[in-house]
């Protein structure tokens, strides 16, 4: 039943068998019908190619970040990791077993998710306590009294108190709701946690507290975390490894310090340059990326970034999809690095 293919990325080290891994994962959404008249329908059903051939692994205890702009597929990839969105190609494996082959209850015991908007991800008609205990009920764990005790412990673990147990979501602030969402995700003691922009709806002072909580929980529970964010300042602070996505593909992945010190892919460099930095004397007049992100339905041929790239090297960029290549501890998909071994560029050369 378990078929090991050679599609596993070379970089993945398999000594630790507790690993959540995307192997060649693609997700596409077919677009049906271009109008009410059958004759107007195109022969080939077009599709939104949200995620294309992505390889990414998260080991236990590791914080992996996915960065990119809206529409790059980062949330779809996150949902594929927890089987909320089945992959249309490739597979997600949990310690070697494709998650499609796992019973739902077993998968959810090991992989949980925290959603972006804490105002919409909690049932308004249930109390905080019952929201947190629901997983225990579904998974048939413990007696009612034990469940309550566990839920209260978890409330305290995320910085709330027993007094919050019987309150409804509308009685909480955004930060407190996100704490409840985290408690709900952790009550089953999962090994992996997928966090989809958990702080983007929060103010920075609240974000700081939630980030401190996530970091603390990850260390103590040895969680493997997949952290999705569009905020590069936050990514640079928090994650160990980073994958930068553009139009459904990972363009650069590697240790976050290396990428921040010297982004290799032109898109990574442009994204970092476009991120405003709250420091004295930050006023700059750099050239932002020109143009807009192309549609996911008509992804540009060749390198998907060639329409906006300032470092195009010629016709090859427009016609051939660059293969991933290991450069300086990182995997980069760019024709700039497709020749024989390239010495890493000096720091900041592309910034």
């Amino acid at each position: 039943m378990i078929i090991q293919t050679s599609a596993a990325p070379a970089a993945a080290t398999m000594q630790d068998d507790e690993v959540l891994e995307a192997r060649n994962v693609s997700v596409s959404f077919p677009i049906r019908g271009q109008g009410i008249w059958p004759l107007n329908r195109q022969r080939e059903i077009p599709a939104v190619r949200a995620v294309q051939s992505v390889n990414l692994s998260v080991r236990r205890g590791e914080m992996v970040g996915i960065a990119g702009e809206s529409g790059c597929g980062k949330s779809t990839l996150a949902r594929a990791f927890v089987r909320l969105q089945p992959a249309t190609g490739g597979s997600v494996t949990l310690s070697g077993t494709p998650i499609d082959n796992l019973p739902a209850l077993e998968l959810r015991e090991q992989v949980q998710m925290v959603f972006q908007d804490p105002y919409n991800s909690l049932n308004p008609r249930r109390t905080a306590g019952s929201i947190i205990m629901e997983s225990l009920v579904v998974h048939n764990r413990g007696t009612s009294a034990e469940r309550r005790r566990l839920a209260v412990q978890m409330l305290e673990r995320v910085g709330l108190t027993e007094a919050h147990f019987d309150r409804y979501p509308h009685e909480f602030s955004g930060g407190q709701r996100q704490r409840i969402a985290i408690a709900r995700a952790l009550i089953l003691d999962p090994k992996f946690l997928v966090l989809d922009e958990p702080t983007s709806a929060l103010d920075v002072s609240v974000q700081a507290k939630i980030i401190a909580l996530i970091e603390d929980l990850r260390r103590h529970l040895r969680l493997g975390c997949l952290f999705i964010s569009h905020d590069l300042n936050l990514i640079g602070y928090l994650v160990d490894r980073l994958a930068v996505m553009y139009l459904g593909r990972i363009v650069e992945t590697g240790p976050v310090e290396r990428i921040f010190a010297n982004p290799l892919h032109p898109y990574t460099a442009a994204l970092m340059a476009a991120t405003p930095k709250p420091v004295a004397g930050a006023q700059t007049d750099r050239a932002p990326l020109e143009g807009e992100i192309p549609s996911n339905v008509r992804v540009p041929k060749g390198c998907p970034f060639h329409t906006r790239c300032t470092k195009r090297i010629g016709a090859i960029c427009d016609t051939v999809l660059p293969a991933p290549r290991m450069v300086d501890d990182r995997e980069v998909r760019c024709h700039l690095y497709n020749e024989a071994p390239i010495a890493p560029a000096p720091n900041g050369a592309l910034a």
Partner: protein
Amino acid sequence: MTRQPRAISSPVDNALTPGLGPGGSSLMSHLLNENVQVHRVTSIQIPENSAAAAPLLQIRGLRLHFHTKTGLVRALEGIDIDLAPGECLGIVGETGSGKSMTARAIMGLVPHPGSIEGGSIKLEGQELIKLSQKEWRKIRGRQISMVFQEAKRALNPVSTIGNQIIEAAVQAQGVSRARAKELGISTLAKVGLPDPARIMDSYSFELSGGMAQRVMIAIAIVGGSKLIIADEPTSALDVSIQAQILRLLRDLRRDLGSALILITHDLGVAAENCDRIAVMYLGQIVEMAPAQMLFGNPVHPYTCSLMASLPSAADRGKPIGRATRHVPPPAGYRYSTRRLPDGSISPEISHMIEVEPGHFVACLPE
């Protein structure tokens, strides 16, 4: 609730502190010695050779309250702002700090059940508070324009872009529709939209978020306003598009010479785009300074904790959210914190104390 009397800064004080002064580090030690001389001021001076320039916008003691069923909400309590022609002022703060309400008060768009309870807003000497709706229509679009956060929601979905920009041009400039159309096309070109004639015939839903925001900006500048208020103009946009829009606002400000109030929750955006920044907290400006000074030498505890909350790659491995920086308040004062020990909000109106030239902090007498 009584308003505290305010001392007026003497010309001598100003003479002591010409220009923008040296960098923050020496001033820091200066402050730590607690020997710093502070000036109690009523007027907030505009930095940089502004002695001659009359302020374009002058706000004094602005108070905006909401009389809700559950009680009185003091949304703004004693806001003082001076804005020079052509200047870019950033207003930053977290949700509920009153930054959007400040913008709405300046535009005369205070939502029900809010009302302006006191203070004055003067645009080139003209008092805006208590204008009639008819008089307001002569101000909006001609003298003050606003760019809203979600451009797609702010544009009318059932009217073409052309109709909306022509309407704005006819209203503001009093020109014919034909002339307004020419003006609209040239303004759309000015904001960097390709094929402006085609955009004129499009609807807002046919545009991307970045294009819609460019259209909003075109509508704001078509009347030739001297003051543009941009309320979170890039918060719904991706960073690469955000950088484009911010560069456009910067270029337009330089070309048209209009002043800009940029309201944002993103301190990075403010740092990179504003001449001066006002930090708001619970309806009050707690600190106001030229951008470089504010980020190089934050003084108010709230500003310090806000800056400590910002994650960055340079702070990896260090805890965030706890301010490690503590600057003692000027002698004879305590920092105005707004929040009383019991959680309620203090009705006291603070003074803006100048701790270094152009750098003001909200304090209360000890």
